């Protein structure tokens, strides 16, 4: 009997095995490093300073995908010995325990994956040290314009940390996939399953909810979960230290799961598609579910409107059949699969129950309307709002009276849901987004597509929109406290023309008292604005003049929200929230009265006496014409034209015409001033009529 001393009886890892793995696979690590250098270091070196922030954001996408790919390949190479009978036998007959084999191989792969990333991070640090800071000027809500070093050591560390974590998490997933599978080909598929299928299942459930449940809006937590379930998408969207920590914990759990399975793995399962029986139904049914929904949604999307639901079901049946058979063939490794009737039958029953459950709304989702006294708030921007918590401050309306109206509106929508569901017969529709904060701390979300005509006829909708609390979300001037937003000046400008063109000059108010009294008048007028007067709901009063607030401290209006959202209500602001504009119409009676008292009205608003003549043209847009694709180089030609010279007609046009018009058939009135000159190309004031409101003398005149 030999008495050589045992090398590694109780060690957790085997250093010789790690060294051997590094010797075997170092080339892969070098290739990974070259990839990182090309993707990360070269663009930074080649980019001018001002674009570095953009580059740092852009390179994250390919670098993250590359990191995930490197991790998957590393795991496949290192644990490939499990997938062949010969290698599994030889490796496990060596004097290495399963514990040592697993941990040593895991550590080897980690080193091979992480070393290139660490080296890349060091190179980026050197570039930073040699090149110095790369500043980017951006606007901060609190600090104003600030200079940020977008290529700071912290940024590089976070970037490198994010890639490391993608490596670690995806490698842990890939190792789990390698342990779960028995052939060299299947880990790739199982990786897809582990990395994406759980997110896909959530997204499918969200999709089914949207198809079957009126008003369905997934909770934010569900969409976040779908995003974070895959480390690649999770770290691409949220490369924060907190997310890195979360994924580190997840990796540790995956690592332990893979280790436990490795210990229990039967080596005779090498060459089987899946090495554990328990994983077969999980993989099979998850993939079948995704295949079913994938083809179902595709058919639904491509089908004509009246056939969408039948095509959904047809797609689902075909998708489920094809996927189930294909996956079973792969698992059983034969064309003639066993147990099809039982296996697919079980899935079919579950699918029917799921679809029937959605169809019948067994959870009572559609009927579930909160009582007003349950509500702590509803998110601002109920109509056509799709920004999800984009407000700079508390984005909730918390006024009890308004919340009562919101809850009542919700009840009415739920009660009329069968009528409202059929969008095809509903004409012009609006979306109603109800994002509640409940008093118990939970959130509840619904989004309904509702005809505008139904909304306009609903008393609770009217009461909600006309409430002070709701208007505060539309008109910041109603919400801000004067000591919070220091108004520097107000500029009143004639609307739509160059200053001086009609002899009208902008008025600048900067006296405290003037500012205060005008703001009060505007607030009073805004409080009185009726639903019908709002441009977003058909209000077509012409804009008489434009009022511009200039503030010292930025207003708390979300920068993330599209400015078009506010423009629908005649409100504009610049992207830094320092300039705020309101279109003043003749509905602003108190404001106009004040301006008249101060003698400013005449000098600002264009009257008949300022007009020399009006050129009228009748235009028609082609139905296909996309508003975004208007060729401004070649303005449309009028079908008919006429000229107005009567001051009475001037008055009527100035009072009734709108500043814009999106009708297919419309009248454009170009107003020429008495005083001053007009730019031949595009000078003057432009006003618009539709068929419904055009004065008779124009309708008959252009024929």
């Amino acid at each position, binding site marked *: 009997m030999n008495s050589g*001393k*045992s*090398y590694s009886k109780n060690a957790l890892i*085997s250093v010789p095995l790690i060294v051997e793995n590094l010797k075997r696979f170092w080339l892969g690590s070098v290739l990974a490093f070259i990839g990182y250098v090309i993707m990360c270091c070269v663009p930074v070196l080649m980019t001018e300073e001002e674009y570095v922030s953009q580059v740092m954001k852009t390179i994250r996408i390919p670098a993250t995908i590359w990191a995930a790919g490197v991790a998957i390949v590393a795991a496949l190479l290192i644990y490939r010995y499990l997938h062949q009978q*010969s290698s599994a036998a030889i490796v496990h007959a060596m*004097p*290495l*325990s399963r514990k*040592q084999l697993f941990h040593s191989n895991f550590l080897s792969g980690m080193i091979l994956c992480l070393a290139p990333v660490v080296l890349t991070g060091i190179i980026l640090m050197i570039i930073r040290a040699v090149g110095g800071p790369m500043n980017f000027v951006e606007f901060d809500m609190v600090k104003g314009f600030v200079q940020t070093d977008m290529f700071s050591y912290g940024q590089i560390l976070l970037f490198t940390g994010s890639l490391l974590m993608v490596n670690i998490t995806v490698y842990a997933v890939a190792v789990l996939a390698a342990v779960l599978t028995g052939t060299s080909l299947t880990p790739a598929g199982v990786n897809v399953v582990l990395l994406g299928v759980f997110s896909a299942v959530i997204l499918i459930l969200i999709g089914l909810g949207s198809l079957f449940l009126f008003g369905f809006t997934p909770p934010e937590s569900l969409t976040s979960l779908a995003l974070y379930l895959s480390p690649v998408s999770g770290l691409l969207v949220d490369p924060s230290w907190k997310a890195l920590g979360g994924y580190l914990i997840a990796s540790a759990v995956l690592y332990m799961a893979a280790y436990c399975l490795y210990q229990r793995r039967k080596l005779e399962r090498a060459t089987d598609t899946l090495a554990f029986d328990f994983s077969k139904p999980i993989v099979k049914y998850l993939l079948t579910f995704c295949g079913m929904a994938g083809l179902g949604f595709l058919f639904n999307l491509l089908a004509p409107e009246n056939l969408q639901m039948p095509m959904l079901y047809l797609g689902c049946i075909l998708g489920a059949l094809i996927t189930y058979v294909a996956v079973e063939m792969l698992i059983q490794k034969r064309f003639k699969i066993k147990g099809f009737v039982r296996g697919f039958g079980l899935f079919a029953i579950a699918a029917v129950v799921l679809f029937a459950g959605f169809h019948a709304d067994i959870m009572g989702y559609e009927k579930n309307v909160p009582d007003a006294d349950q509500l702590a708030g509803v998110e601002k921007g109920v109509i056509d709002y799709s920004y999800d918590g984009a407000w700079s401050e508390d984005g909730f309306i918390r006024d009890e009276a308004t919340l009562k109206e919101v809850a009542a509106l919700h009840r009415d929508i739920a009660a009329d849901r069968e009528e409202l569901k059929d969008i095809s017969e509903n004409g012009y529709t609006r979306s109603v987004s109800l994002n509640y904060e409940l008093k118990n701390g939970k959130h509840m979300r619904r989004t309904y597509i509702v005809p505008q005509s139904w909304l306009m006829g609903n008393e609770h909708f009217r009461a909600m929109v006309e409430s002070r609390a709701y208007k505060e979300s539309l008109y910041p001037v109603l919400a801000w406290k004067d000591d919070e937003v220091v108004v520097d000046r107000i500029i009143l400008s004639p609307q739509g023309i160059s200053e001086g063109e009609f002899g009208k000059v902008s008025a600048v108010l900067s006296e405290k008292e003037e500012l205060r009294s005008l703001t009060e008048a505007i607030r009073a007028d805004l409080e009185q604005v009726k639903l019908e007067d709002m441009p977003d709901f058909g209000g077509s009063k012409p804009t008489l003049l434009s009022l511009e607030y200039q503030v010292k401290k930025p207003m708390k209006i979300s920068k993330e929200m599209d400015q078009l959202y506010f423009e629908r209500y005649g409100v504009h602001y610049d992207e830094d929230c320092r300039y705020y504009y309101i279109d003043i119409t003749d509905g602003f009676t108190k404001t106009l009265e004040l301006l008249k008292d101060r003698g400013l009205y005449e000098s600002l608003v264009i009257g008949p006496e300022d007009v020399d003549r009006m050129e009228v043209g009748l235009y028609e847009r082609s139905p296909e014409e996309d508003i975004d694709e208007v060729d401004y180089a070649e303005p449309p030609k009028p079908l008919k034209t006429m000229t107005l010279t009567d001051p009475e007609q001037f008055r009527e046009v100035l009072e009734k015409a709108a500043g814009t018009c999106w009708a297919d058939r419309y009248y454009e009135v170009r107003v020429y001033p008495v005083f001053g000159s007009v730019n031949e190309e595009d000078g003057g004031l432009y006003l618009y009529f539709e068929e419904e409101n055009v004065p008779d003398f124009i309708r008959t005149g252009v024929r």
Partner: protein
Amino acid sequence: MIEIKSLTKTFDGFKALDNLNMHVRKGSIYGLVGVNGSGKTTLIKHLTGVYRPDSGEVLVDGQPVYDNVEIHERMSYIADDLYFFSMYNLKGFAAYYRKLYPNWDQERYAELVKQFGLSETQKLSKFSKGMQKQAAFILAMSARPDVLVLDEPIDGLDPLIRRMVIRDIVEEVAEREMTVLVSSHNLKDMEGLCDCIGIISKGSMLLERDLDDLKSDVHKIQAVFPEGTAAPVEGMNVLFSEQKGSVEMFIIRGNGEEIENRFRAAGPVVFDRLPMTLEEIFIYETGGDRDEFREILF
């Protein structure tokens, strides 16, 4: 040295090993013989700790083999289906084995490389199957194992190399009391190598015999008696008898001297005690006409 007790293994409902028992003495060369699919490789993979038993025990020196690093350090295994790391040559593999096996003998390695005349720097994947077997043999022997397990080691080796392999094994057994288990699907391969044979069929051990005992216990007698005189076999354990003309042939188990004395006392005209081959012994020991034996014997 090696003790297998009631070993059972099932693959997807198929019983590959069924309540199998085996005993290998220290310092012996045990021949495991069975047709393809009889369970030899499955048994060997249990013995080398690759497979975990469903039930039963696989012990070496009284210790379970499965996941036992100490046992694996003292055991070398040459599989029928060889595997080497891709891109590796013999030298690289030897360097790896040197770190893994505490009894690694570099001098022995050098001797064996010289003996077999293999290149140390050529990639193992470029070797022929026979050369790969030799490489595996060199590595296995250089680890100076206490237990050597060889799965179909003779396949692919030319007669000269085969003799060298057998000689090296026998020498190691003689010098160090190395225990060897060698499997084959043909009993002829075991002739002159093994001192104990186990025949496995359908996952069960049909029989286990010490060859010395067998050879001294079973005798082939050829005799001619005068007309009217019967052969004196009454009370003897006759495994087989045959008469061709006046010549009678008997295969008898028992003490050779006693059998010869009884035959001679009956006054035979002709009497011969003939030598028996391993195949013959097994044929007559087991009845000879059983299907599972035909393939391993002929």
